[in-house]
């Protein structure tokens, strides 16, 4: 997080706000609700309280305006700047201006008023922009699901550095953005992708660097806007240039950046899993055999991609085919003939020909830390 230069802050904890005018894009009730929810995000983690007033001057004056509106920071029509806010202080201090040339929504269409209001309020309270891509205080708009509209731990750390924590004994915790060089990093899923490896965690993908590029952390929706957050397993069926992503009892397929039509599909109907299998922990396609291994709790299932059926004799205990990697797998992928299994804070390099673990590695060994 970054504090506003000079560390401006509100000296009083009981602040007032007033909505000076309303956008025609939403009902007044929707605007009131979005703004109130935005204040609640910040009041839940600080001693600050916010009261709405309907007349006169408030600490934080909120308005919808367009073009040059007399504060030396004009808007320039749709897109570009969505809104801005002023640091804590008297007069214009703390005030928030939304660009009326944008279309404001209370859903996932651009641009969600609650999300933008919550971000601007961070400025009104003394936060500057964060370079944590998962933080609400990151400057770019990025809302793909309702889950995205909440404080990250970075936001909470920032605001509590200014005002201290809430006196409420039950403290909400914020979401952490994965740190590629954190040795405690774990993964939801890993897949190869046209020769590269993509590590998935929450809303993010991590892509190791190569000789010409740095490791990269970004939102999964940069590539696939329609995939849900929190994917649980993924594998590349290279023969068809397809990647399959799993969450719960559904899966999605993509080719390059194209989401293939007809998904999500059921893992029960497509692969023949019994109803008792509710989700898949990890999956990997073995090019040599044309088989895909699915890891479900302490068992493996083997699926023949060409016969499109489960192999007889499965499920088995994981140890039957992959001795030494334990009884649970978070994620797995194949590269250069070896399988790399991830379980908690461990990574196992496994030789499928000899069925032996070759090396134990840190989970983030691919990121040149």
């Amino acid at each position: 997080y970054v504090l506003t230069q000079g560390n401006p802050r509100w000296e009083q904890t009981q602040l007032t706000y007033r909505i000076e005018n309303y956008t025609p894009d939403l009902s007044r009730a929707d605007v009131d609700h979005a703004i109130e929810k935005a204040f609640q995000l910040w009041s839940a983690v600080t001693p600050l309280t916010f009261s709405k007033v309907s007349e006169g001057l408030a600490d934080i004056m909120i308005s919808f305006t367009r073009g040059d509106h007399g504060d030396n920071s004009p808007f320039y029509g749709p897109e570009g700047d969505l809104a801005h806010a002023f640091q804590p202080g008297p007069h214009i201090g703390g005030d928030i201006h939304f660009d009326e040339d944008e279309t404001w929504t209370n859903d996932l269409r651009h641009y969600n008023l609650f999300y933008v209001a919550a971000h601007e309020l961070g400025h009104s309270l003394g936060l500057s922009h964060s370079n944590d891509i998962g933080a609400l205080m990151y400057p770019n708009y990025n809302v793909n699901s309702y889950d995205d509209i909440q404080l990250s731990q970075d936001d909470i750390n920032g605001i509590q550095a200014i005002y201290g924590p809430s006196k409420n004994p039950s403290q909400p915790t914020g979401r952490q953005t994965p740190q590629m060089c954190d040795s405690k990093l774990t993964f939801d899923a890993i897949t190869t992708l046209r020769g590269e490896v993509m590590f998935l965690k929450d809303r993010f993908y991590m892509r190791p660097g190569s000789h010409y590029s740095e490791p990269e952390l970004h939102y999964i929706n940069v590539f696939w806007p329609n995939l849900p957050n929190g994917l649980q397993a993924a594998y590349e069926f290279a023969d068809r240039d397809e990647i399959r992503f799993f969450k719960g009892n559904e899966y999605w397929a993509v080719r390059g950046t194209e989401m293939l039509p007809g998904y999500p599909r059921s893992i029960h109907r497509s692969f023949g899993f019994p109803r008792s299998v509710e989700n898949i922990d990890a999956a990997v396609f073995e090019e040599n055999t044309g088989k895909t291994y699915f890891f479900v709790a302490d068992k493996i299932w083997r699926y023949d991609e060409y016969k499109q059926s489960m192999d007889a004799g499965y499920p088995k205990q994981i140890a039957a085919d992959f001795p030494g990697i334990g009884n649970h797998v978070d994620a797995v992928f194949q590269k250069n003939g070896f399988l790399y299994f991830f379980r908690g804070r461990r990574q196992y390099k496994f030789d499928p020909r000899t069925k032996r673990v070759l090396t134990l590695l840190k989970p983030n060994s691919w990121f040149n830390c």
Partner: protein
Amino acid sequence: FPARSFKMPKDAEQMVQQYLENYYDLKSVGEQIGQIGRQRKGSLVVEKLKQMQKFFGLKVTGKPDAETLKMMQQARCGVPDVAA
């Protein structure tokens, strides 16, 4: 790798200049005249571009590459990323 298709904007140079002025405190250099002014402008732009690329977790090149321009085109908050 399936990098998303990206069309380089025609007015990329102007877009970079405007973005860095708005959010990275790149002072307008219109009043700077002559060779020294132009050189100064060039190095300032590179410096600010690097600052912007580092902030957004992009590869720090000091050049307006496709990823950088794509980031600049995203809708965002109008508050500058660095203090004026």
